[in-house]
Structure formats: C-alpha cells, structure tokens
C-alpha cells in the first residue's frame, strides 16, 4: 500500500495548531452552559471590535435584501425609464441608473436574492458532497479511501472554471446550473478538509473510548466525529460562500447568468463594464458592494476562527 501524504488544504490550519486548540478546549472541563449563553459569550468580545460589527452589518444587510428587498427600496427593479438613462448617483438614485434608466441601487438590492441563493446552493452542494465523501473516505480508510481520494484528485486537477463552463454548457444557462457548476468546483476542498479532520479525530482517545465502550460506528460518527470535524468545515463554508459569489460573477461575465431582466451582482457588474469610461458607476458601485459583502464574509470567518484558537 502506498502512503498518502495528506496535503494540507488551502485554508487548513497547520496540524500542530489544530491539535493544541482542541486540547485546550477539551482540557477545560467546566460547568455546562446553554447554547445561547455560549454563543453570546463567544460573540461578545468579537462584537466589541468595530471591524467585526461593521462586517456583520454588511452581511445582515445583504441577507435582509435577499429576504425582503421591497423594504429597502421603493423603486421597481425592472421598470425602464428611457428619459433617466445613465444618471449619475444622486439623492434619488443612490447608485445612479443604468443604460435603460433603471435604479441601480434597487437592482443591487433585488440582485441579492439570486446571488445569495446561488451561493447557498453551491455551498450546500459542496458541503453535502464534500462532507459525505470526506467522512466516508476518512472513516472507511483503505481502498475506499484511496479510491475516493483519487476521485477528489481528479476533480481537483480539472481547472475549476473549465469544469464549470462545461457543466453550464451541458445543463444550460441560468442561476441553478451556475450554482451546480460552482458547487462541484469547490467540492474537493471540502472533501479533503473533512477527511483530514475525520482522520485526526478518529485517533483521539475519547473516540476510541466511545468505540471500546460499544458505541456503533454510526453513533460514534454522529455524536463524536461530526460535531468535532464541523469547526474547520464551517469556516471553509463561510469562506467558500464568498468564493461562490465571486465564481458566479465570473461565469456571469462570460455570459452564463440569470435570465434577464433579473440580475445577480455578477451580471450587474459585467453588464456595466461597457460603460467603464463613460458612466463608471454602473459597474463600480455594484462591484464595490459585492467586494464589501465578500470581504465582510471573509472577515467574519477569519475573526471567528482566530477567536476560537
């Protein structure tokens, strides 16, 4: 049997740190608190950081826009108004208007639903697929592990965008195919991270103790392994949520996006790029908004991760 050298995945913390962190957590046997208490206690110091609060606000705004866009704006995102085409940002049109006179701020707000849905779907696909593959490989070990990891290697070796292009061309244009394509593209990362975590946890004393105590594999998996493997995977999911939004934008740029007149953020930026010289706000403002959201997501994920360490 060949020995597989586990490559630390992109976002993985070097193993030594992971271990010390876990040891630290396990070594503080303390009075049990409610979930809420624990959450509040964990968040409180973070919320005192202005950067974290600001990032949280941006993300909450994006989520609000995705759920109830009509609360955030009074305009119709699809109503054209030829007389007001390409108006620069002002008090009425905060982000200005596009080439058909539609209010850009409104389009960004309404675009949130599609963009966030697409990203959620992509991450969900990657999460379910990656988690499944990773847990199976990590747990089963041996040939199954080798086989599954080769499959993951195959996916990893295929350039993400080319794979996405082929998938989108195969199943058609639109938000869902794009999400599927992006999800498949980021799946290998999840599979590797999960497998790494499972392999690490499997050898921990308390898991072995649970097994020796007669717990079934499924129960061990469910009660002991998954909850502990979850941390790094959740961070990766948050990071990849941002990455998925960007990947969707990239595909929109190449012409694969939502059916018009609806528009994801990527489509807005991509369509506005023709006016970069003459009316830069059409591309710049949605672009800055997208950057703000993705950056905030990254910031939240990093802060949470650093805090946990």
């Amino acid at each position, binding site marked *: 049997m060949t020995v597989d050298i586990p490559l630390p995945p992109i976002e993985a913390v070097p193993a030594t740190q992971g271990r010390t962190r876990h040891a630290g957590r396990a070594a503080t046997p303390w009075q049990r608190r409610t979930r809420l208490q624990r959450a509040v206690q964990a968040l409180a110091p973070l919320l005192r950081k202005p950067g974290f609060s600001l990032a949280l606000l941006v993300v909450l705004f994006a989520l609000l826009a995705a759920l109830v866009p009509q609360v955030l704006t009074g305009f119709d995102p699809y109503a054209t108004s030829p007389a007001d*085409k390409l108006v620069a940002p002002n008090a009425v049109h905060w982000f200005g208007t596009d080439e058909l006179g539609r209010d850009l701020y409104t389009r960004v707000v309404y675009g949130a639903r599609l963009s966030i849905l697409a990203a959620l779907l992509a991450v969900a696909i990657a999460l379910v697929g990656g988690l499944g593959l990773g847990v199976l490989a990590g747990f089963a070990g041996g040939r199954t592990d080798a086989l599954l990891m080769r499959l993951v290697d195959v996916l990893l070796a295929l350039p993400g965008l080319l794979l996405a292009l082929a998938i989108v061309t195969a199943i058609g244009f639109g938000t869902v195919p794009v999400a599927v394509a992006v999800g498949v593209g980021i799946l290998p990362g999840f599979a590797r991270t999960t497998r790494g975590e499972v392999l690490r946890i499997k050898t921990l004393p308390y898991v072995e103790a649970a097994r020796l105590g007669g717990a079934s594999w499924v129960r061990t998996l469910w009660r002991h392994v998954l909850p502990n493997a979850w941390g790094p995977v959740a961070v990766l999911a948050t990071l990849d949520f941002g990455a998925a939004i960007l990947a969707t934008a990239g595909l929109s740029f190449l012409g694969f996006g939502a*059916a018009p007149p609806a528009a994801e953020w990527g489509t807005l930026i991509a369509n506005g790029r023709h*006016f970069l*010289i*003459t009316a830069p706000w059409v591309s710049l403002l949605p672009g800055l908004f997208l950057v703000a959201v993705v950056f905030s997501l990254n910031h939240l994920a990093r802060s949470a991760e650093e805090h946990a360490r």
Partner: protein
Amino acid sequence: MPTLHRLFAIGSLALALAACSPTDNAAADKTLRIAFWGDNTTLVSVDPFQVYWLEHRVLLRNVVESLTDQDPDSGRIIPWLAQRWEVSADALNYTFHLRQDVTFSNGERFDAHVVKTAFDSNKAFATQLPATFGATYLAGYDHAEVLDDFTVRLVLSKPNAGFLQATSTTNLAVLAPASYRLTAQERSLGKIIGTGPFVLDHYTPEVGARLTRRADYAWASANVHNKGPAHVEAVDISYIPEESVRNGLFLQGKADILWPRNPFSEVDLNLLQSKGATIQSRSLPGPALNLYPNTRNGRLLGDRQVRLALQKAIDRTSYAHTVYNTAFPVVTGVYDVTTPFFKPQTEKLAYDPKAAEQLLDAAGWHKGDDGYRHKNGQRLTLRYNLTPAESAGDVLVQDQLRKVGIDLRLNVLTRAEWVAGNASGNYDLTSTYMTRADPIILQTILDPRAANSATLATNTYAPATLAKAQALFDTGITATAEPQRAHAYGQLQDLLVDEASAFPLYERVWQAATAARVKDFRWTAEGFALLSDIQVAQP
C-alpha cells in the same frame, strides 16, 4: 532585511523595464489600424465563399475582387473585373467580357480560365458542403464556358434574378488558381490570393490580420476614387472583444478606426465625437433586425390579433433613441433602407399601445392582478429565444410589452440550444439576420425551400400566407425586369407587415468611428469599406 530590499529592487526594475519599452511611431505612420469586436469563433474562416461574418467581408473586399461591383447609392451593378456583360433573354446565360490587364498578387494572369476554375471550384465545394453560405449566391449555376481568353459565359440551369448582384459580392470573388489547389481549410486560415489593392499577409484567428499594399494595382472599379495603389502601406486589423478596452485603445490613439458590430450608445458617441472622431454610418442591406414569430402548433402567436397587437406594442422610436441615440434612424420596414426595392411601412409600424390593448381585449386576453393578460387560466407569455446574450434593447422591449400585459421571456441560450430550438419550433419569437444588397437574401431566412432553417421559415406564416409569400418570392427571383421585381418585393414587404410575420425592432446601422487623421472613409454597397481610398495624415 536584505531579502526585502532585494524584492523591492526586482519589482522596481521590472516596472522600469516595462515602462520604457519603445513605441514604434515611425512604422505606424502609414499603417491604418482597425479595431473590430471579437472574431468569429464558430466558423473560423476567411475563405470568401464560406464567409458570412461582416468583418471578414470588409477585409476580403480589399484583397479579392469580383466580376462586377455595385453602386452604393443606386444599387446598380457596374463593371469591375468584367468590363461589360450580356444576359440572355431567358436569364440563364451571362456572358462576361473581362479586363485584360489584371494580375493576381502571386503573378498569375486573370483570364476566362481562371474565372471558370473559380466558379467550378465553388460549385464543387457547395456540393460537398451544401450548408456553406456562398451556396445561396451560386444558386442555379451549372457550368462555365470559356469563349476566348477574356470572355467567359456562366450558364445557369434555372433563373436567379440575384445572380448578377451575386457576381459583385465577396462571396463569388475570383481567387487565383493557386488558392483553389489548396484545401478549404488552408484557405480558411488565410491562404487567399486575389487581385485586390491589398495582399492578405496573415490572418491569426481571434487576434488579427495584416494587409499590405500592392504597388502595381491599377484596376479599381468606378466606386473607388483612387485608381492606383492604396495610400496606406499596410492595414493592421485586431479583434478586441471587450468594448471598454476597444474604446479605450481608440481614445488613446492606438487604433485609427473603431469598428464594433453594434452601433454606438449615446454616451460613447458623445465621448468619441468630443475627442475629434468622425462617426461613419451605413444601414446594412438586407432584412432589418426583425423578430420572427412561431404561428404554428397552437402557439399563442398563431392568433393574428395577438400578433398585430404585438406589432403595435413595440415602441421603435424609443428603442432607437434609448439604446442608441436621438439621431439614430427609426426602423421603417422589414428591410433596411439600403436594400434595393425597399418599401417603407412607417404607418403600420407606429407605436400605439391603446390599439394593442384593444386588440388583445378583443382576442379574449384580459389583464389580471399580476399586470399580465390571461385567457382560460393561461398567461400571455411569449418565449423569445436568443443567443449568446441579451442586449439592452431586448430588455427594453420586454418592458414595453409588459406595459400592455404581454410577458416576454428572454430565453438566453447557447448557440447549440438556439439552433435546436429553431429547428424544433420550441419558441414564440426568434431572430436572425443576413447581409446582402439584394432582397433575395430574405429567402435564406423566410422561404422554407431555400431557408437555412425550414422550420423557422414555415412557422413565420399562417398556412394561407405561406403560399402567397412563396409565390411572391418566385416572382421576385424569376422576374428579369426591374419594375416586376420591385412590385413583387413591395407586395412581399406589405404581406409580412400586414400578417405580422415579422416584427422589425431596429435598423441595422453599421457604425465606425474614424480618428481625425483618417480621411476619405467610404462605404461599399454591402456596407464594407474601400481601404485603398483611405488616407492617413502625417502627424
């Protein structure tokens, strides 16, 4: 911290090196630089017979030449490589008397044998690949007879009133026999030898092409003012897909002619003009940008009332002024105005949302709470198949139709799906165009017997209308006298608008911006440019 120092040193060195790369001003002086949009990536070819791509036809017009030429103002066919010709009474025999002073750029003589080789090679290619674009130009061609070294007779097996015009196009241009000895693929990639004022130096797909001047050129047609060799020494053509990049290059002075496929938007137009550019425009002959309905198989547009309502619900003035600019011509018929026998339909294409609503009410479509019209529980949703991406204009029409309660679905598809959709009739509206300065071109779209997609052509008409349209196409192609043709094509245009079998959206105006140093930019009949006339001023 030596490493850090080293890093910075390397970085600034790289910047310095890049910044002081020399600019070659001297060589650029007599070179004309044209920036087109992206190259054709579906059919990679500059073989004249196969090419339908407009930008390649611009290039080819200056490299290869045809038996005749077409006057851009009157549409009349005038002499070029043939000094004169006779057409037999039955319109089956075309006898061309050729110029005797013409040579190809490889030194071969242009004569009757060469013409026969060219037409026979084209026919052989069309037999092998009937789908090729040039085949429609060659329709009816049977064989060629060499009467003497400089007289050739082209014999048709069936009448083709567009044949004389076809001999003026790039598609039936005459190449040197050496070119025909190569494979079609070699020709496609730039092995093209013609008699034109420029020689195709190379063609690199998706990147560009270079034309160099022929010093001994002296047989221009009457359309060209410059009877001798071209004024510029070379023409550099580049294909730049990104609009903002293309415009930026032009504004920076890195391109002399900015020539995208779609007309300029108002902001771009203002910017270009403020920088001293001249905007050259010409309506491309052939159909306007029309939407074609699917009236068959119980589709919603099978109802003539609905089609007529749709015709009235489109605000073509707003389209031209919003998507392009206030000076942009509003489309007035199913053909562009530069097409011979064009007949305006201005009244019938006027915007009248009230009349549209009345027609829809009368047809039993009533507005529901969602703002759209419904009948028997079905929403008035029309599926418009388009490829590869929607334009601002499409979205504008979508919103215009929403106002009268029609739900237009912009169905963006890959080319493959779009083609499949047309062939299976899985659409309510679709769109396509061709450019040729003869009304016959509409047959390649709308006559099921000759169309690229027979399904699309059939679906456009209600069953009774199809027979009428075909009869008119037949009259148009067999008539030999101009008034007869004008009458037939006039009736055809009326029929298409009255039956709402075509919905014109905009006039296909081709615009190029020329820099201040470019003089004497002039159009050919089919909307290409005569590059040998162009002068570039010395700075």
